[in-house]
């Protein structure tokens, strides 16, 4: 049976892993290559790197980090942040990324999703959706690291990117990100049920039960977390053991 994936997320700026609260107030969490190696040893199923500055200088730093990680860590790597063109996608894949995540660029230029997946295959293209609750049962899509509200509905947007050729959706609740009070399970379930491609739940994990909830109640295919792993509260292995004891199929 296919295992549910646990994915530590590394937000990177200026060559360092950082973590913010509600997309603000950054705190240093260490060296990306060292952290990636540690999570691999703990049994992480994949790693996600998000370049949260994504200026042109930062892009070269990120490529270098991806190369170094890919030389040492033999699990799938997803990289995102500032991806605007098929050339950006190719650069990251050539550096050793397995999947590339796009967010704002997909919203403002949906053709990019189609073009990129046509060129490199839909299994390599992840669309990241930053969603925020705007009414009961309704979530709006934000861009630019959560600063700009668009007119898009999160569920409709997820269905649209699937048609355009996305192979996976990385779904972050902006209401929950950094709060440690758990995923927005209604959001996760609504999106996961609306599409036929895998959905990664993100935003709000504060304990191991939250991870299990994302899969069991949110029906996510994978769960992503940062701070509970970065600051040594839990190892990935502990997370997997906990999920297994709650009936979730994991790779241990």
């Amino acid at each position, binding site marked *: 049976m296919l295992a549910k994936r646990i994915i530590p997320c590394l937000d990177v700026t200026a060559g360092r892993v950082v973590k913010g609260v509600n997309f603000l107030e950054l705190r240093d969490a260490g060296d990306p290559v060292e952290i990636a190696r540690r999570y691999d040893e703990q049994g992480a199923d994949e790693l996600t790197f998000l370049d949260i500055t994504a200026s042109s200088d930062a892009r070269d730093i990120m490529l270098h980090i991806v190369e170094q990680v890919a030389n040492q860590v033999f*699990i799938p790597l997803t990289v995102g942040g500032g991806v605007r063109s098929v050339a950006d996608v190719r650069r990251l894949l*050539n550096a*050793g990324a397995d999947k590339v995540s796009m967010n704002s660029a997909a919203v403002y230029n949906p053709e990019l999703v189609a073009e990129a997946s046509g060129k490199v295959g839909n299994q390599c293209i992840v669309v990241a959706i930053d969603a925020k609750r705007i009414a009961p049962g309704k979530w709006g899509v934000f861009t630019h690291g959560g600063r700009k509200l668009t007119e898009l509905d999160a569920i409709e947007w997820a269905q649209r990117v699937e048609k355009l050729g996305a192979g996976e959706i990385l779904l972050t609740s902006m209401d929950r990100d950094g709060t440690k009070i758990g995923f927005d399970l209604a959001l996760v379930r609504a999106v996961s049920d609306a599409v036929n491609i895998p959905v990664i739940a993100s935003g709000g994990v504060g304990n191991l039960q939250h991870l299990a909830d994302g899969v069991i109640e949110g029906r996510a295919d994978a769960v992503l977390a940062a701070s509970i792993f970065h600051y040594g509260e839990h190892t990935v292995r502990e997370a997997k053991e906990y999920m297994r004891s709650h009936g979730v199929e994991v790779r241990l």
Partner: protein
Amino acid sequence: MKIVVVDYGMGNLRSVAKAIEKVASASASVLISSSAADIQAADRVVVPGQGAMHDCMHEFLSRGLREAVFAAAQSKPFLGICVGMQMLFDHSEEGDTPGLGFIPGQVRRFADGMAGQDGARLKVPHMGWNEVNPVLPHPLWQGIEPGARFYFVHSYYCQPTDSAATAATTDYGLRFTSAVAQANIFAVQFHPEKSATAGLQLLSNFVSWQP
């Protein structure tokens, strides 16, 4: 020893080469190449592949690789990965594409709306870590537990005409062939280069395999 990873512009060649370098002896050289001469001179050949089958076949054939790869598939240890496995078959449903025809059989798409044993909906692509169950003894399974998990990411699966070619199966809505073995050819649907310890073990077995 010279190991060539065949470059036809599709797939994460660098990861495949790095993973083989990690398990090969220091005297081995791992070369990413699209040259027929390099493939002829190689001791072992790896054909990775990612993306759409039609594009893969097009790039592969337009680089004039068919003969060299055909010769390698008949004469030396040969490893196909993902679309590199699918291309060995006669035909793929993806874009109605003819394959190389080294192994008789078809490549089919997972149906939308499949359900697992627990009734949960199974999504396509089949993405993540799933169990690989060897169905015949083979040197490439050495040190790998039956049911070990490998990383998959694909929407199409191979269906050999002769089930004797099946080296392992995996369950995802149906039981499909996740590895094939035929003389000096071994091919896998999963990505050993992205499958942590189990994947590196399989690559290590390939590097020392004497068919």
